[in-house]
């Protein structure tokens, strides 16, 4: 057992770091680090810069044009990108639909979609949840009726992140309503420009419009856009969810937030001294730093399992629960570090280039919104209660 990175792994880290130094524009990382709104173009320009270097799909094998990195390299890449303030690589295309297309898609689908995910030409969003189907995903009701060589789709998806920017959506649809819930689902790839697709924003509690409802009214989808077999979609959906959970620890981002919290707590004054010198507050920071230290090692243990070709199992649920707990604790502590400066709601100041009047310091602007927004972390991607069900069932045999 040796938890240090090998010389090769350290060289790789240096390579990633030099690339970030040379190619991550300072104004872009300033937006990320300053908690500003990122535009579609911000995401895409960074995606393209990575694509030029062959790094836009860090989790892909060589045969599909990926860099072929092992789990440790992917972790190092993620950690360096998060630390440098690079815009996050959105998972919907790269980490969600792509692995499904690689594993279950036709050759034609692989040829058509994978290169466009890699280049950023296609922006993908995820059509899983419905208003009546959250944790009980298999109860989904969006219908797809086969008529000739198309499926006619009717229904509604919800919580669709950044659907307003998306070119394509992958959807779980019901193709056999008379069968048991899990046995009548298919996996469709739908062009967002198809007539009958409507996107309506959902305002979240922080005032942001990150998620949407997507409505489908007699939307015609060619049969060749079905992945795999008809009515086998649940198998593919579960495969995708397994991939989704491994990315949810968020260690790199948490480390950055922790450093920001310490900086803020060092500048805020409480009782005539910096807040960080108040033992009661500092102990809470210490507690979360310690928990993050443990999470980082647990994350590395799961990565080591992947490296040994053991598929990510229920251990990924531990990462999801612990990671979201820590994200929520960090966002909450940072808000409390600001005290009264956490009150002003200044959405205009979240836009880059804002030059109007400000209440309080500039770095205080995104803090409360981030706390409010991250209440989602214990709900999305399988709520933490569902994760506990998974742990109880698969790790404890209950």
């Amino acid at each position, binding site marked *: *057992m*040796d*938890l*240090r*990175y*090998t010389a090769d*792994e350290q060289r790789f880290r240096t390579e990633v770091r030099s690339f970030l130094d040379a190619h991550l524009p300072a104004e872009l990382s300033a937006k990320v680090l300053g908690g500003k709104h990122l535009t579609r173009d911000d995401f895409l320009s960074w995606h393209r810069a990575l694509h030029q270097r062959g790094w836009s799909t860090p989790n892909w094998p060589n045969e599909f044009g990926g860099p072929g990195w092992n789990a*440790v390299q992917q972790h190092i890449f993620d950690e360096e990108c998060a630390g440098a303030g690079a815009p996050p690589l959105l998972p919907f295309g790269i980490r969600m639909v792509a692995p499904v297309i690689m594993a279950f898609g036709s050759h034609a689908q692989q040829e058509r979609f994978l290169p466009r995910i890699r280049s950023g030409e296609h922006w993908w969003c995820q059509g899983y949840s419905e208003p009546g189907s959250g944790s009980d995903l298999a109860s989904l009701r969006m219908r797809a009726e086969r008529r000739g060589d198309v499926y006619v789709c009717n229904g509604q998806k919800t919580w669709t992140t950044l659907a307003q920017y998306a070119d394509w959506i992958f959807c779980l649809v019901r193709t056999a309503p008379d069968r048991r819930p899990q046995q009548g689902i298919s996996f469709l790839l739908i062009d967002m420009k198809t007539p009958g697709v409507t996107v309506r924003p959902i305002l979240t509690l922080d005032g942001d419009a990150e998620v949407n409802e997507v409505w489908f009214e007699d939307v015609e989808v060619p049969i060749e856009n079905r992945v795999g077999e008809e009515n086998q979609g649940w198998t593919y959906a579960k495969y995708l969810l397994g991939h989704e959970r491994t990315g949810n620890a968020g260690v790199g981002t948490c480390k950055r937030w922790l450093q920001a919290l*310490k900086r803020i707590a060092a500048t805020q004054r409480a009782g005539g001294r910096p807040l*960080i*010198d108040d*033992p009661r507050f*500092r*102990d809470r*920071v*210490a*507690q979360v*730093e*310690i*928990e993050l*230290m*443990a*999470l980082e*090692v*647990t994350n*590395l*243990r799961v990565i*080591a399992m992947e490296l040994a070709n053991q598929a990510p199992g229920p*251990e990924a649920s*531990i990462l999801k*629960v*612990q990671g979201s707990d820590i994200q929520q604790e960090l966002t909450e502590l940072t808000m409390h570090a600001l005290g009264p400066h956490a009150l002003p709601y200044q959405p205009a100041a979240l836009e880059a280039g804002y030059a109007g009047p400000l209440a309080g310091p500039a770095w205080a602007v995104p803090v409360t919104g981030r706390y409010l927004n991250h209440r989602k972390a214990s709900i999305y991607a399988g709520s933490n*209660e569902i*994760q*506990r*069900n998974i*742990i*109880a*069932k698969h*790790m*404890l*045999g*209950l």
Partner: protein
Amino acid sequence: MNFDFSEEQIQLREALVRLLDRGYEFDKRKQIVGSESGMSREIWQQLAELGVLSMALPEAHGGAGGNAVDTLVIMEALGRRIVVEPYLPCIVLGAGLVARAGSDAQRARLLPRVAAGQHLLALAHDEADTRYELASVATRARADGGDYLLDGKKTVVLGGGAADTLIVSARAAGEPGDPAGVSLFLVDATAPGVTRHGYATHDGQRAADITLAGLRVGGDALLGPAGGGTALVEHAIEHGIAALCAEALGVMSVLVDLTSSYVKTRKQFGVAIGTFQVLQHRLADMLMRVEQARSMAYLLATTVDSDDAALRRRVTAAAKTVIDQAGRFVGQQAIQLHGGIGVTHEAPVSHYFKRLTLIGLTFGDADHHLARYSDLMARDG
């Protein structure tokens, strides 16, 4: 980066588990705990023959030259059977100190006999007012010719009753709280001037209060540099904490196993209580705590041999915080989920709980280590 155990470590663990499966059933342990000495010389001898006692000792003195990861493998297995024999005080603390600080003559005199299971060591450091502050040594060491005269009272010396040689910390200069001025001495536990009051601890292990009154030791009793005792004790305690973290892992793993088995068989309202989601989620929380604790035990085991004292200090404080917080939750919930049977002497779960509780009180509790970590964070960022 790898989390793999070596072939040798896997073999050692398997052999140790086999030995304990055979010779350390719950009833056998009860007999040992209830015996006069509170340990089994027979088991100790078997541990010696298996190479468990010598694993982490230097090769030049009958050891296998192992490291803290070897100790982790051993302690986790001992924890799974809540073994009461004095591996931590004698091997991890005592022999570890002699190996790190001893002269060649001291090492040659003590370590081969310790490795053979014929000689027991203990670290006599804590005093009535020490709590967890390592530098608050009040025991005095007065130079007298080439000798030293030791006077003071040591409390809750783990394994102190059975030890043949004590490693005593005593102050030749300065006041309690001053890290400088403390030296370590090798003391024959049966020498005139040494009085021991031995007793059992709540987890079935043994400790002793030890009074030193005008105890004369020669200059060759000095272990490590004069005045360098505090740093040596600190490093020994860090090794002790790494070992306790590994032991706690073994204890907690068994508690999760016992509890998940119990809720699958215990029926109320006509069904196994393990079908209740509120209990399933409690167990899922227990398991998550154990996994986080495991990560910290691994991190500390791979850090505690490092020469970087600041890093060791920080990781030690972090690991003990996580392990103690996890141990409190896992232990208390294991009892809770067992219901009434969990608070009986008859149920193994209660004995695992007691060991875990006392681990949480040994070498600093979670509050102590969190505060310590917090101070280090304030200093170093």
